């Protein structure tokens, strides 16, 4: 059917644009508010667009309490530990579940996926007590463990399915050429499932970076706060001038940047990672 441009297409386009505008409005408000001066950010009624562009909100955020670098390091550290734990645990597990002749393999796989059913929110109380006994509260490792447990079933699912999609013939050829089992994994299979690894790492990063409740429970000392916690804290803190909205919006803007950046950089991989895992 040849494409006709009647009124409908323009109407659909207009509706889509309107929805996009509604979705993007809070983002624009955040960014523009972060660039306002302190008095303008607190002005009632609020101004729509920034009159004087100033970075003083970011300056105040930089020096807020323990300082922005500490919090960024906490958030980033927890995120990268989460990625590392996830990959270190799911790559061997996924490979074994996809290739090794284990009795009841399917059952083990489904059993591991059952963790998806239990919401981690309902496990936080016992987790907190276990961690308190093992002195893991207020540590990045402890937080990363919580985030890893959230992320593991999904990661295992993706990794295992893409290991299964790797043709056995390639592995057999490598074995004939004298590769050991470990070499087959590192030289053949890992490069083949790179999209899946990127997907898992990306989702682990985003989960860990945005996660709030777990961090709230595990971290209760100011120096160990992650970025979302600091922002929540700044929101509740009522100083003489009330909440510092400009600084809050600056923090929000900064916390958005890494996620968007990772998405855009790895977009190509993560789309193919999904399909390579799912089509199989």
């Amino acid at each position, binding site marked *: 059917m040849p494409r006709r441009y*009647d*009124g*409908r297409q323009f*109407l659909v386009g207009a509706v889509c644009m309107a929805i996009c505008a509604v979705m993007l409005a809070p983002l624009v408000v955040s960014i523009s508010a972060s660039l306002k001066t302190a008095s303008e950010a607190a002005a009632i009624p609020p101004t729509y667009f920034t009159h004087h562009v100033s970075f003083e909100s970011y300056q105040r955020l930089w020096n807020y309490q323990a300082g922005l670098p500490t919090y960024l390091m906490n958030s980033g550290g927890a995120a990268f530990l989460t990625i590392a734990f996830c990959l270190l645990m799911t790559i061997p597990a996924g490979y074994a579940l996809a290739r090794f002749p284990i009795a009841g393999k399917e059952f083990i796989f489904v059993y591991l996926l059952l963790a*998806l*059913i*239990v*919401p981690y*929110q*309902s*496990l*936080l*109380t*016992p987790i*907190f007590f276990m961690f308190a006994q093992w002195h893991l509260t207020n540590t990045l490792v402890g937080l990363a463990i919580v985030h890893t447990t959230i992320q593991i079933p999904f990661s295992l699912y993706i990794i295992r399915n893409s290991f299964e999609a790797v043709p056995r013939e390639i592995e057999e050829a490598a074995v004939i050429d004298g590769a050991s089992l470990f070499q087959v994994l590192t030289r053949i299979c890992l490069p083949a499932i790179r999209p899946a690894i990127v997907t898992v790492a990306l989702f682990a990063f985003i989960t860990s970076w945005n996660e*709030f*409740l777990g961090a*709230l*429970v595990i971290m209760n000392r100011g120096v160990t706060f992650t970025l*979302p916690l600091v922002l*929540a804290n700044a*929101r*509740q803190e009522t100083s003489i001038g009330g909440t510092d909205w400009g600084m809050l919006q600056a923090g929000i803007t900064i916390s958005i940047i890494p996620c968007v950046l990772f998405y855009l950089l790895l977009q190509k991989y993560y789309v193919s990672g999904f399909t390579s895992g799912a089509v199989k």
Partner: protein
Amino acid sequence: MAFPCFREWRQRVVRITLPLTYKTILLVTLVSVIGSLLAFDQFFLMTAGQPFNRTASLVFWIYLNSFPYLKLGYGAALSLLLAAMVLVFTIVQLILTQRSRT
């Protein structure tokens, strides 16, 4: 132009598109229901349950009882309740995905 087609279009949606996709629609609804059951951040940040804990969600109520109030047994009991609720929804969801795959 689009107006006389409306009847046709409505029939197509009601008779064909919706019956064929209703399982998917139900699935998406369930996923978002589970997501809403577990909502916490929004409540904690925007209202903190105020006034008088009338805007407390279930997860927020668990958090409030377990940590600031230190009523741990109550919090743990509520956690189990939450897990059971989510379990019911998830089982329905699993049944639906099983069917829609075949």
